[in-house]
């Protein structure tokens, strides 16, 4: 009897520690918006190939994306974004490494929506800066949808805007993140 209890306890411990700890996606969506009131049109690009991993146990969170993967509606805008602004040939990647600071408030085994606080370091255009934002986790049927919006000051990342278009391009870009995360098996 004692043995049986022990086996069950061990089995439960093993399954809970090795299963459903990390969640990931390789099709995370990151939206970049630098439209201002005086912009003649929307200055907006979307990247659909971002990688994201969340460790539900520690709250650690990591994003990686390729700058060249941002798609703009206008070809010229996309070329300018890559060549003149973020210089993606020199700095092909952007990444975020951080953690959910209120991770204990999230019950990953129960369906629901949780407001999270995320803190970490964003690297883009060869510069690393601290970023802090509120986000949302929606847990449903064993999957997590993570969303967050935050602003980055382009000058912080040494992205310079030519004087000619200085009033047409926002100095802070709005970044919106949407990721549907699935449990990582293995």
């Amino acid at each position, binding site marked *: 009897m004692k043995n049986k209890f022990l086996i069950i306890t061990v089995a439960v411990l093993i399954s809970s520690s090795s299963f459903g700890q*990390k969640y990931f996606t*390789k*099709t995370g*969506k990151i939206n970049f918006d630098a439209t201002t009131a005086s912009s003649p049109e929307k200055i907006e690009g979307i990247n659909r*190939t971002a*990688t994201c991993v969340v460790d539900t146990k520690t709250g650690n969170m990591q994003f990686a994306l*390729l700058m*060249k*993967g941002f798609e703009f509606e206008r070809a010229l805008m996309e070329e300018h974004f890559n060549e003149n602004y973020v210089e993606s040939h020199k700095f092909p990647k952007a990444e975020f490494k951080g953690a959910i600071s209120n991770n204990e408030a999230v019950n990953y085994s129960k369906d629901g929506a949780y407001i999270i606080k995320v803190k970490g370091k964003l690297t883009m255009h060869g510069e690393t800066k601290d970023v802090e934002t509120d986000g949302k986790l929606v847990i449903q049927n064993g999957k997590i949808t993570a969303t967050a919006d935050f602003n980055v000051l382009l000058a912080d990342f040494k992205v310079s805007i030519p004087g000619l278009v200085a009033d047409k391009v926002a100095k802070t870009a709005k970044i919106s993140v949407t990721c549907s995360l699935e449990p990582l098996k293995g």
Partner: protein
Amino acid sequence: MKRKKKIILYVILSVLVIAGAAAIYIYKEYNRAHKDTAKLKADYTVNATNFVNEFTGNEQAANKKYWDKIIHVDGFVKSVDKDDRGFYSIIIGDTASMSSVRCSMDSIHNNEAATVKPGSMIGMKGICSGFNADELLGSDVILVRCVIDQKK
């Protein structure tokens, strides 16, 4: 006197023509659409496994060679992912390996991916945006604006 007037007229006319041409050029350039990947000629034709290996072996050299180039890649379809907004990604490579070539479909050609079956052989064409190295999830070469491209 008459001749002077004629010269002025010509000058004004040519200035107008140049200004008009410049305006048309700027307008066209501003509104230029992306080229349809289906109509572009591939810069490189590669096999998915070798392609990934090239990046794993020397990312810098592979990036220099393939980045922003049009790639035709042949390989085995590991899976076809559809995201919550209906966009398809076709994942090509060796099933024994975690690493793949991830082809994100071009929005105009997105629906063509609906008929792609995992387990089949495929040829895809897209623009290489680089290499996403990840030890945990497997490292992938990413192609964007992809189209299905069966003939070589």
